[in-house]
């Protein structure tokens, strides 16, 4: 599936992007021969038949793990390898916080169903879930800027993933955190509500089950009974969902990254499309497909870990 989807994206990308457009309007204008001369060694010239281009590209990946170069000659491998970690720094932290916060809120509100805390939690979550990521991120930027002004120093950086010229172990970590906090908060705000609602409704299905009552009768407190018995059952679908949202979060960080100026995969995606970088676009598509596959695998692993009835032979 991944291979087929990637190859299809290759042809689609050729249908919509044309590297030749990059040279339109150059001053002084380049001649036809010059353009071909620039593009041909990069396997991006449309004078070569499409099938031959495709074969060059595919054999490069299969035999040398070389995903090609952009129209200006940057290696796609290097770009992806660097940007992947920038994105991961942002996305992994946000996913972990989102999941923990969502599950905690779900458990808290479910054990106080229809009480004030539950009502407030539900109302907040339904609003934050439907705030657009753009609005949330820009709102946070505004807040952070006014906070910085109030304090007098730059506590939060609103652009970039790291400042240049920072040395030393602790300064680097503090600097990274200063950059990391705002985009992570933006991703968490819009993301946690989905987990919260799912966890709440699943736990409510289980909280009145016989085995939870048995656990209470054995002498466990209500909190213990919920944590050790009801929660464990209801975590299974939540874990599946979280694993499947990883690729979505990665791609959903496109907007966050472009607002906060992070040079991650999302930014790369925009650049490749606007610069007619076909090889880069296809590499991102392949990356997304691989993430989907990893998500599915993680979901299976989570089910095996959480559900004692599932046995791996």
């Amino acid at each position, binding site marked *: 599936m991944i291979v087929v989807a990637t190859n299809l994206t290759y042809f689609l990308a050729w249908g919509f992007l044309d590297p030749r457009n990059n040279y339109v309007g150059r001053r002084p204008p380049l001649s036809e021969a010059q353009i071909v001369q620039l593009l041909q060694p990069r396997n991006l010239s449309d004078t070569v038949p499409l099938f031959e281009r495709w074969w060059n590209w595919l054999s490069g990946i299969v035999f040398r793990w070389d995903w090609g170069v952009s129209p200006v000659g940057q290696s796609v491998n290097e770009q992806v390898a660097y940007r992947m970690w920038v994105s991961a720094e942002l996305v992994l932290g946000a996913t972990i916080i989102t999941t923990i916060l969502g599950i905690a809120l779900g458990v808290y509100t479910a054990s106080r169903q229809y009480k004030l805390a539950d009502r407030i939690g539900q109302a907040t979550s339904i609003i934050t879930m439907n705030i657009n990521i753009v609005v949330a991120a820009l709102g946070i930027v505004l807040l952070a800027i006014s906070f910085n002004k109030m304090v007098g120093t730059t506590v939060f950086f609103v652009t970039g993933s790291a400042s240049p010229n920072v040395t030393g172990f602790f300064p680097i970590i503090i600097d990274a955190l200063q950059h990391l906090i705002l985009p992570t908060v933006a991703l968490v705000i819009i993301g946690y509500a989905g987990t919260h609602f799912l966890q709440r409704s699943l736990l409510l299905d289980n909280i009145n089950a016989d085995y939870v009552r048995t656990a209470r009768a054995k002498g466990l407190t209500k909190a213990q009974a919920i944590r050790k018995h009801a929660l464990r059952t209801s975590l299974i679908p939540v874990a599946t969902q979280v694993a499947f949202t990883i690729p979505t979060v990665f791609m959903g960080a496109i907007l966050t990254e472009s607002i906060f100026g992070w040079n991650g995969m999302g930014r790369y995606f925009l650049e490749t499309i606007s610069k007619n970088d076909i090889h880069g676009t296809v590499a*991102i598509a392949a990356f997304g497909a691989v993430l989907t596959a990893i998500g599915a695998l993680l979901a299976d692993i989570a089910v095996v870990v959480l559900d004692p009835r599932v046995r791996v032979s």
Partner: protein
Amino acid sequence: MPKDSIQPAVGPDTTALRLPRKRMSKWHLYSRRFRRNRPAVAGLVIFAVLVLFALIAPLIARFDHTELDFLSLGEPPNGDHWFGTTSAGNDTFAQVSIGLQRSLMIALAVSVGTTAISAVVGTAAAYFGGMFERFTLLLIHFLMVVPTFLLLAMFSNDSGGDWRTISLIMILIGWFFPARVIWTMALSLREREYVHAARYMGVPGMKIVLRHMLPNIGSLLVINFTLGVVAAVMIETGLSFLGFGVKIPDVSLGSLIGSGANTITSAPWLFYFPAAALTLLTVSMALIADGLRDALDPTSAAGGRA
């Protein structure tokens, strides 16, 4: 005098007749259950106000959204320009109303399209079974692997910013996920007695799908439709924000927020108004969807009795 609503005891030891009770119509029941959910009613009111704003505001605005007022560049909100102006002299009030109109139109068109296609394809796949079902599922699973946002960006970047083309592309890329859900729902429907009965009476297959199976997942479709509006608004905003969606001179909420983002510290009103409109729109639609779910689901406890 007995109250009309209280039934006299009926049994072997009394001769009292049951009072004729007015049957509650389906719509009456739905609206009553919907009204019980106060946030949903609030959502409906907000949504109605937004629609009215999108329809009426362009008529009462003093400036056209493409008109440039060179005497007031980048002004904060004042008596002349109620929502302020951009640095090029566009009236933000007119822009926001037109942008809201555009976003609403795209969202409604996309949601109608995806709901209709996914409903017909999903139920038809479940009903006809066999090769058709297998082929449809293969197609859906394949489309799930394809990076749709990338396709969306490439297609709509190519379309030149016409909102009709963008909606069409969003429909083509958005139908398969709900179709998969509807297929699962319809699997149990096809084994129901009334579907068998219709089939043995000789009703043609497509007619069974449209007349007998679709109405029975109607409540799911209504909810899908409202949530689809939210999703479409979100995606359209994202695309336009990045510059792949609606393009100048046409505006949408996304492109307005995108241009407002560049001047967020110097001219924040360019961001505030479209952002507020967008947030109100999505939150109100989500509240309505929540209320509809309670109102239409016969097993829902949240709707209360009746």
